[in-house]
């Protein structure tokens, strides 16, 4: 071993983010002190970000199998079969920490990272969705973050050429010190051409392809595994710098070289860079790897083995080729003007050997690196939760004018139109997007077939905060329901779990409960979780974010032409409300926006009722009976009706009558799961009624579209009578006015 590296001590190991116990384990497993480069390997691969040390025992509870699953968790992304020989590859990932430190590049490289996860599987990315959470917009720093994140996403996605078709943006004070940037990507691949991140076949050449390696992003994985304090901005050098143009070339080169059949396996150099690929790929295949670091293309001089192994420079991949086909690989990457350098070989024996100019700088069993210790730390329900839940929102004063209350709610930044952001994103490149952003789910056709994909992301931190288990289950239900409202059958889930520090028992309790909720809902809806990401340590100076699982759902429409969108299409259509009557103001948007309260109980969730409602909506849409279908979520049925009135090209009025509740605000703005607003043309009413009768769900007609006003009665009494145009203006300006 080389003597040029600093000597490793316990103190150095602690500085690198390892615990004393972990360091002991390394000493005993290696039977010696690690070299400095080896310490770097352990520091990165045993970080929470790479190793899921605190979450792995919980994640095992998620259902991961199903008849359509071609690839579950453990690869670059999950894969679901969609028929006609096609498969969909998708995953969601967070880039929260980098985006707080440097919003533009943080968000941009978040997009870059997830795109690579998709195309390393052999798929062409066809859609991006972003789930963003920020503090409230009265803070200039938040405005800067929103601007930076949105322009970073716009810059990277647009230049690369993948449309941004959906996602959501929500605001709450708990995210002020820790914004969330979760990016989901969806790609298409022929089911028989999926490529995996393996290093099979000792003797096969290992190629480094893509961008050169620099000193950027070193310790990115370790940075994402700690909380922030007031010095967060000093960590800017740990944020990578993106180059979407190079990524586009890398996409085309990778897909072209994969088509030749010369690729054995390939993995994105994301978190922990070369270190991660050279250990995870052979670990999956029961092989080893021997690499020469001096051959790694470098854009800076004098880089140490430690830096080369741990750099998180963007737009790079590690590719294992079939022996004898090296020239094909070189030729294709040369065509796309990218580096493709053979840096080593797959070996037998299960060891990663890294050399610098022939001299060994690290030699570690890959299983030891890939199998970090896992922990089951204690969990405790937060003591204040029972009190918060016990609060009765109906003790608060009622609004004096419900029309004004509805206008205010529709114009609150979380509910208002996000067009300000979406018009900065290319939404159509690839000419697949048949339902653009703005409906419950985006719909993308699959060219050459009659099918289409529907995609949606959802997650409500307030509901999860008050009841992590049910709140997380409701996030799964809502994302799936959104997909059903477009007419599609949900096929698979990806989840991004955003939480505070798992070392705090209260946070880990939130996490454990949320996983249980996701698991329950996914089992009830027969939805496998095929991949995802855990982002812990989302806290600054001890203030954790709202626990926020973001759920991405992908569904399939067998006939792309049989689909629905959320807005009313014309006058005289009957309007129905599907789903159970159970609603609550606890944890609702109304309670927060109007009364600044985060308290109360959630409405009860009946997963069997949810499943039936989803099936009924799908059946009605695919039978062509429905002219609009819209999920009731934030703001309750009043906001859902108002959105159906104003979110289309032309504003449309509606008259509706709701059943009485304990109070008018509960009837209008109460939130509950499993509810959908549907519009049906008069001529199809009979057929629709027949279908609903068969579906064994509770539902009723509540009104009719038409006119220029939204009129809502609760029982016999008119409580809202507002010009739809005025509602539309409030909805369109509610967010944008802050950003102008």
């Amino acid at each position, binding site marked *: 071993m080389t003597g040029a590296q600093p000597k490793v001590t316990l103190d150095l190991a602690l500085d690198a983010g390892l615990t004393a116990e972990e360091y002991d384990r390394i000493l005993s497993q290696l039977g010696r002190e690690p070299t400095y480069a080896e310490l770097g390997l352990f520091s990165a691969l045993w970080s929470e970000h790479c190793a899921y040390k605190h979450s792995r025992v919980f994640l095992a509870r998620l259902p991961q199998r199903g008849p359509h699953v071609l690839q579950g968790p453990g690869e670059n992304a999950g894969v679901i079969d969609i028929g006609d020989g096609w498969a969909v590859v998708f995953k969601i990932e967070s880039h929260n920490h980098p985006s707080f430190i440097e919003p533009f590049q943080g968000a941009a490289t978040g997009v870059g990272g997830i795109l690579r996860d998709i195309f390393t599987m052999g798929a062409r990315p066809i859609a991006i969705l972003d789930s963003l959470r920020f503090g409230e917009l009265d803070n200039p720093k938040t405005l800067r973050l929103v601007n930076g994140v949105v322009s970073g996403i*716009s810059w990277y996605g647009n230049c690369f050429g993948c449309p941004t078709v959906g996602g959501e943006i929500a605001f709450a004070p708990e995210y002020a010190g820790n914004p969330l940037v979760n990016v989901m990507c969806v790609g298409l691949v022929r089911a028989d051409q999926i490529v995996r991140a393996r290093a099979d076949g000792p003797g096969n050449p290992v190629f480094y392809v893509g961008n050169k390696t620099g000193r950027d992003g070193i310790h990115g994985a370790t940075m994402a595994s700690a909380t922030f304090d007031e010095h967060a901005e000093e960590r800017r050098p740990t944020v990578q710098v993106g180059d979407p*143009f190079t990524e*586009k070339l890398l996409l085309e080169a990778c897909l072209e070289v994969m088509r030749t059949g010369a690729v054995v396996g390939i993995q994105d150099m994301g978190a922990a860079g070369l270190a991660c690929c050279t250990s995870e790929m052979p670990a999956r295949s029961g092989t080893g790897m021997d690499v020469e670091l001096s051959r790694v293309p470098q854009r800076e001089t004098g880089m140490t083995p430690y830096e080369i192994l741990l750099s998180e420079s963007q737009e790079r991949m590690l590719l294992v080729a079939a022996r004898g086909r090296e020239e094909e690989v070189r030729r294709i990457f040369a065509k796309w003007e990218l580096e493709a350098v053979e840096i080593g070989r797959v070996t037998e024996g299960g060891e990663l050997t890294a050399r610098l100019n022939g001299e060994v700088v690290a030699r570690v069993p890959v299983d030891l690196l890939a199998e970090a210790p896992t922990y089951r730390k204690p969990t405790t329900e937060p003591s204040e939760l029972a009190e918060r839940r016990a609060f009765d929102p109906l003790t608060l004063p009622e609004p004096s004018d419900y029309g004004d209350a509805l206008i205010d709610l529709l114009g609150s930044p979380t509910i208002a139109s996000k067009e300000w952001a979406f*018009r900065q994103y*290319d939404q*159509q*490149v*690839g*000419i697949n997007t048949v339902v653009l952003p703005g409906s419950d789910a985006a719909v993308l056709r699959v060219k050459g077939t009659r099918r289409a994909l529907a995609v949606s992301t959802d997650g409500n931190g307030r509901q999860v905060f008050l009841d992590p288990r049910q709140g997380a289950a409701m996030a799964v239900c809502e994302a799936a329901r959104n997909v059903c409202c477009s007419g599609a059958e949900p096929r698979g889930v990806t989840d991004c779990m955003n939480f505070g520090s798992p070392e705090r028992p209260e946070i880990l309790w939130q996490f454990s409960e949320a996983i249980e909720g996701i698991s329950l809902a996914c089992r009830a809806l027969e939805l496998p979780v095929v991949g995802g990401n855990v982002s812990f340590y989302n806290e600054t100076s001890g203030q954790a974010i709202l626990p926020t699982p973001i759920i991405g759902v992908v569904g399939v429409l067998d006939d*792309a032409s049989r689909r629905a969108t959320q807005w009313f299409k014309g006058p005289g259509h009957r309007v129905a409300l599907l789903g159970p009557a159970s609603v609550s103001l606890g944890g609702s948007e109304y309670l927060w926006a109007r009364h600044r309260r985060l308290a109360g109980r959630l409405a009860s969730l009946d997963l069997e009722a949810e499943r039936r409602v989803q099936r009924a909506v799908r059946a009605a849409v695919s039978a062509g009976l429905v002219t609009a279908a819209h999920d009731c979520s934030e703001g309750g049925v009043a906001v859902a009706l108002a959105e159906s009135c104003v979110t289309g090209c032309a504003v449309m009025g509606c008259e509706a009558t709701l059943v009485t509740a304990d109070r008018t605000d509960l009837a209008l703005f109460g939130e509950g799961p499993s509810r959908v607003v549907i519009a049906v043309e008069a001529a199809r009413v009979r057929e629709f009624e027949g279908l609903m009768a068969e579906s064994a769900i509770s539902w009723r007609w509540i009104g009719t579209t038409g006119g220029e006003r939204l009129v809502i009665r609760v029982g016999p009494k008119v409580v809202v009578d507002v010009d739809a145009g005025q509602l539309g203006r409030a909805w369109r300006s509610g967010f944008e006015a802050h950003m102008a």
Partner: protein
Amino acid sequence: MRFGVVVFPGTWSDCDFHYVVSEVLHQPVRYVWHRERELGQLDCVILPGGFSYGDYLRAGAVAGRSPVVEALRDFVGRGGLVLGSCNGFQILCEAGLLPGVLTRNECLQYRCQSTHLVVENVDTPFTRGLRAGQVLTMPISHGEGKYYADAETLARLKQQNLIVFRYASADGKVTKASNPNGSLDNIAGIVNPEGTVLGMMPHPERASETAMGGTDGLLMFQSLLGSLVEDGTFLKR
């Protein structure tokens, strides 16, 4: 009609144009790599949207000096048709095949949205099937689409009737509110004096199928197909 779709490093509308030409128009089409210098048997060359060479210098600046664009000059000289959309329009201006320049959008942000275009010049192979004053609906998707030319050039464009499309309201009025990027005189597309080279910021390939929400882009392609005469020349009217 034989089409070629040019692919630069960073081009992304290439597949979309290829799809529309082959699957919607059922015409022969091939990709043309940016290093090619031979455009041989093609009738119409399409320069698609994207970020050629990353557009890191100036949008279209590097591509405007590439081998295929040099070949394009001969091709145009022989009377071949060229359609540049989005980045393709930027490249044509950078190459000097069309006058003027496309600069950063006035709002300083990228814009992806539906726009209305009023047709000003129907004496080109691309527009001979349209009516003067007709309003087309097509999306834009760009960060640098604000057309600018000096007063002399603008006067010449007007005098020779070289402005083909202008951003307009749904009823065809050319207004400031309907201008999505601050283009001079709401210019969305221009043509060379011969009528054979058309540059436009909007994306006709994204408006060529009912499934994608509109077919006004297809009207341009249909004009093109109808303009081809048996001897290989093109009708303008």
